[in-house]
């Protein structure tokens, strides 16, 4: 599914066993067969250094992840992290030692950020192990997938 030789990558981050945290992975699954040729597609658990490896060397990376910014569940927000950090409200959504925002800044610090890195956030509310995604989040998967295709067509 992924290709190290491709110039662009779409990365869906999430844990499919943890409620709305699955959002990014579900978007990646919805994108199977729907991306332009040569664009790699990766389902990812969000481990920070592996994430950096997944986007390093690409010209374009689109990262889809669940957010916890206090907006209504299912809300989509898109950020260009190529030249500036993610907004503070979107910087702390991970339960891991490193957040996506920190992985981006670490990659920026060691020169392993793609020239263009876009982040599409899907607001979630339920992150418990074994929970199903909320209907509002499940309903946002297809619109998010369409948004990713638009972003790839615009920037790739």
């Amino acid at each position: 599914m992924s290709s190290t030789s491709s110039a662009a990558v779409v990365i869906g981050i999430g844990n499919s066993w943890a409620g709305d945290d699955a959002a990014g992975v579900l978007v990646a699954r919805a994108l199977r067969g729907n991306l332009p040729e040569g664009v790699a597609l990766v389902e990812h658990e969000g481990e920070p250094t592996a994430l950096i490896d997944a986007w390093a060397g690409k010209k374009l990376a689109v990262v889809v992840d669940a957010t916890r910014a206090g907006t209504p569940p299912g809300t989509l927000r898109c950020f260009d992290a190529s030249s500036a950090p993610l907004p503070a409200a979107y910087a702390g959504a991970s339960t891991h030692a490193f957040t996506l925002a920190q992985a981006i800044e670490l990659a920026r610090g060691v020169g392993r950020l793609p020239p263009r890195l876009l982040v599409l956030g899907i607001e979630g509310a339920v992150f418990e192990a074994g929970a199903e995604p909320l209907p509002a989040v499940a309903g946002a998967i297809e619109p998010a997938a369409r948004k990713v295709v638009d972003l790839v067509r615009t920037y790739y």
Partner: protein
Amino acid sequence: MSAGADGERTIRTDYLARVEGEGSLYVRLRDGEVVDAKLKIFEPPRFFEAFLRGRSFDEVPDITARICGICPVAYQMSSCRAMEDALGVEVGGPLRDLRRLIYCGEWIESHGLHVFMLHAPDFLGYDSAIDMAKDHREVVQDGLQMKKAGNELIRVVGGREVHPINVRVGGFYRAPDKRELAPVREQLLRARELARAAVAWTGTLDFPDFERDVELVSLREPGEYPIDRGRLVSNRGLDIAPAEFEDHVVEEHVAHSNALHSRMRERGAYLAGPMARYELNFGELSPLARDAAREAGLDETSRNPFKSIVVRAVEILYALDEAVRLIDGYEVPDRPAEDVVPRAGVGHGWTEAPRGMLYHAYELDADGKIVTAKIVPPTSQNQKSIDEDLLGVVRQTISAGEEELRLRCEQAIRNYDPCISCATHFLRIDVEHV
């Protein structure tokens, strides 16, 4: 820090950075003396043990791998060992070597994350690896490179980098052929050179002068450094098989934490993890790792928990060395897994997760469905030790300014690389209350 009218003052860090999961630090002082010092864990319990009930035995490696994004292989391996104990299956030869090989990958990537991204900033005076990278870019890049080799090893053997999907009770779904392992061997060799330098570099860090006498507990398997099997031993005479674990170790709920605290029955706190493994098994390290440890000035018995960063670097080097050895000796197994037939039974298993021994126990019905599950992760086992270290560190640093005291306490917690997500999945609050 806040000061009370009665001479009491408290220090709090409400959200601890650079640990896995959500926890906080709480220190209470009265008239210049420390009254209380605790790591408080408030991440909600995750009820994995209840979640497992009714599931089939063969689902467990994949389900328990989801408990932790940092050490999924440890959960897979401990759960497989316990299931195989219950079902009378013995995994040996090349299949067992393959398990040890993928486990080396997890040690490399987990220790690599902790040493270079989470712990090193404490010693160099930075808030994060991001800030550290501005002045020490090479250290961070080398750390990422070593970690990448570990990730790649897990991907090749496990099917993908995080939460590998190739592990099953009895072995693997598919065994790699020798050609698949050749490219990763080259990565491991390059990473091994970086790791040698990293051990030396960690030895140059400035360590607080602090030691604590505690019971050290780890697996021990004659002829090898403990990773995937062995008896549980300690420097105070413990020497037990997995089925005896709950006779010797009790778990307690304490008011300040959502994680159960383990203690050795009759004796109290004990220490699991790299420091214990290292001291109890120094002679089993590869010559390369032993020499690097000595050259870095690390004694065979090191009781300063702040030197755990050196020990982790030594274990990264060992895991890289061991992985190369295993690849060089690898023979493709005749079949990827032993036959497994469901039956009623009780099984116990343990392995050495990067943070310390991880214990699993299961009771199965005749169809192989789980009746009860018990998981004791290393961070639960080390909670008492963390609190005792905090007390000692605060006593020693009490005259320092509040910021120095806070940072030293946070560093003391990070000595353990605590995985709070792993520690907070207890099922019942029915053990002793203290």
